[in-house]
């Protein structure tokens, strides 16, 4: 990160002391951790505690190694933890070594597959697909959450809070609307009961995907138009793969296939890159710039100086907390 960015971060903290915790990934860690505990405890996932431990160990070790190799100042342990949680939530195996291998592949993919200065694949998504394709005795259970409305509501609420803090919630909401629209159209066309729509949309797996995977701001297009194009593509792909080709885990497959297109959306709709707030954790390769870093130029930052009521309004309007690293580039703040 450039000195400009660092300066603006500390300046922000001083002026707006209520901005705690600064990094929405902490909240994401807590929520995903709770969901994992809930799933393993109440839903009796076919998951061995040793598999969870090995996933975390492997993710952290590979993250530390890649950060050191790239000469980064800090180890991006939060990102590694989130990836490990994602893999533990999604992947099932009847061996102990599949999980750590998947986690290692997930973290390594961030350095291996890059375009336009950012990684192509959501790490958990890559790890799961890698395991499904390359490792024996591995599967993912899209039905593991069932369709309990209570659980679904809880995931949706927690997810909404996090995506609106982490970035714009436009990817999640856009995806749910596109996928829900396609499902509704199919239900109406087939003459099925509306209960089918509810059953599909209340699926715990779908909501986890919408609010904790596709919403990852680091692997979404930078501009809101790009993000909408991206989530529409993923929704359409997932729908066709699932309903027409009967592909199991169609959501994760769709995101994996559509990921390279993010570079295309970024080329068509250029915009400033998303940055998590914590310092020095970037895994981008020195592409971020903060040309003249004046905090006063940043529209999202100015919004934070507004009274708390205004902030709530911003979140309710879906504008979230996203702020531009390059304040001068059009489209960096959330669309209004």
């Amino acid at each position, binding site marked *: 990160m450039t000195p400009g960015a660092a300066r603006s971060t500390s300046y922000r903290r001083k002026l707006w002391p209520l901005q705690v915790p600064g990094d929405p990934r902490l909240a994401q860690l807590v929520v995903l951790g709770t969901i994992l505990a809930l799933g393993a405890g109440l839903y009796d996932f076919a998951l061995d505690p040793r598999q969870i431990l090995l996933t975390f160990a492997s993710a952290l070790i590979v993250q530390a190694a890649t950060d050191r190799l790239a000469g980064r100042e800090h180890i991006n342990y939060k990102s590694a933890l989130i990836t490990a949680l994602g893999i533990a939530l999604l992947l099932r195996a009847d061996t102990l070594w599949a999980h750590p291998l998947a986690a290692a592949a997930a973290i390594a993919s961030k350095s291996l597959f890059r375009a336009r200065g950012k990684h192509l694949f959501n790490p958990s998504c890559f790890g799961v697909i890698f395991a499904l394709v390359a490792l024996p005795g591995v*599967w993912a259970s*899209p*039905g593991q959450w069932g*369709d309990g409305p209570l659980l679904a509501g809880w995931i949706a609420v927690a997810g909404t809070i996090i995506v609106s803090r982490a970035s714009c919630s436009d990817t999640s909401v856009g995806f749910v609307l596109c996928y829900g629209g396609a499902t509704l159209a199919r239900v109406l066309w087939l003459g099925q009961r509306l209960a089918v729509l509810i059953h599909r949309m209340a699926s715990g797996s779908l909501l986890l995907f919408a609010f904790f995977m596709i919403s990852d701001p680091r692997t979404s297009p930078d501009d809101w138009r790009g993000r909408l194009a991206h989530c529409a593509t993923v929704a359409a792909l997932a729908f066709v793969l699932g309903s027409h080709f009967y592909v*199991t885990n169609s959501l994760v497959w769709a995101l994996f296939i559509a990921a390279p297109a993010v570079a295309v959306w970024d080329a068509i709709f250029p915009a400033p890159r998303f940055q998590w707030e914590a310092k020095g954790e970037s895994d981008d390769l020195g592409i971020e710039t903060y040309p003249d870093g004046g905090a006063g130029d940043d529209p999202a930052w100015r919004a934070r100086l507004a009274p708390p009521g205004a902030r709530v309004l911003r979140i309710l309007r879906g504008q979230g907390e996203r702020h531009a690293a390059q304040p001068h580039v059009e489209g960096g703040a959330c669309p209004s």
Partner: protein
Amino acid sequence: MGKANGTLHNRTSKVVLVHHEDKTVISIMSDYQGDLAQFAMVVPVPVVLQRGQIHIGDAAVIRHLEDYSAPRLVEYDDPNPCQMYYPRAMTGPAAGALTAQNAAKATDSARALGVKIEAQYTVGEYDIVILSALQSDGLQTWLTENGYRIPPGAGAALAPYIRDGMKFFVARVNLKEQAKTGLDYLRPIQFAFESPKFMLPIRLGMVNAAGPQDLVIYLLTENGRVETTDYRTIEMPTGTDVPQFVRDDFAKTYQAIFDRQVKLNQMRGVFTEYVWNMNWCDPCAAPPLSHDELRELGVFWLDNRNSPISGGPQPMYRRQMFIAAPAGVILTRLHVRYSAATFPEDLSFQETGDSNNFQVRYVLHRPWEGSPQLCPAAASYFRELDGRRATEARNLADLTGWELADISRRMGISSVTPPSPWWQNLWH
């Protein structure tokens, strides 16, 4: 799968689903007891079936599969405390099953109704028509006009299948052919087809049901356990120590355990009762199926394989830890109770990579019948026995939801109290 109306309501249907590389063989076993002339079965199928794709199965093989995978009791004799034990397996209940169908006779006036008779066969004791339809009203009218007794709500349930391009496999009993078989029951209908859909249509089955229905699905795959992808798949509780009297009526006890699990999960799950590699079992409630029996059910991939159950030697039927051989065939037994409210969609499956075995078994311990005076260890054995019986009583109460007092009475022990609440001794 769906069954048309009848005087008896479906309680438990049995289906065997063999699936491998987009190829599926389905066997449907009906325990229909009523007037054979009234029997009818309507099953949506993805393709028009040729004559050679339909076969009449052997009910004995399905019964064998049922016995082999049934929930079971295992009894251990307590060893002489003053000085080993061996397990004995007993077969559990064959989940009671009743199905009800009916129908009548055939004539066709299909065109005007948008119904096309794609094919017509008599196979064994069944007259079978494969239909495609343009609209559900037409199909319902055709079925009714041709003497199949279809419940009033069937049209709405048929419509989505028609839109989805599915064909309908409609069967009823040919009484002359049935008489020739000399059997007093209907043999299972089997059909084989190729389609990427790994699913089981259950929506038609709900049309005529007065309440929730039970379905036991036996899935035979090559590599791993099968689970549902659109509903939760839940393992039944297993391995619990239960009182000895359970042996007298295990069928009823297991029914109560299943009822309770369904209730605890708000009737929103599919329950795994058995997952095992068909090469062996431990303990075996019944011998594993032979190569010929598996073929009869539609397992088609064993022929070119050098597996122990293919060709020469029959499967092992004795206590055995492991046979390091290609998996060959994995049997998954799923039991589901479904209603229209909690199961709006058909069951979709996936074969997982999970090769762990699972069985539902409950454990009985037969006490040692010696005297406490025999040795010091004997005295402490009898003290521990009381505690163990109380635990067994509580286990059974947890599993079945039965009253602890009733369980204690049946065990012939003084009434076991439920664990006292945590606050009871807080201020006293």
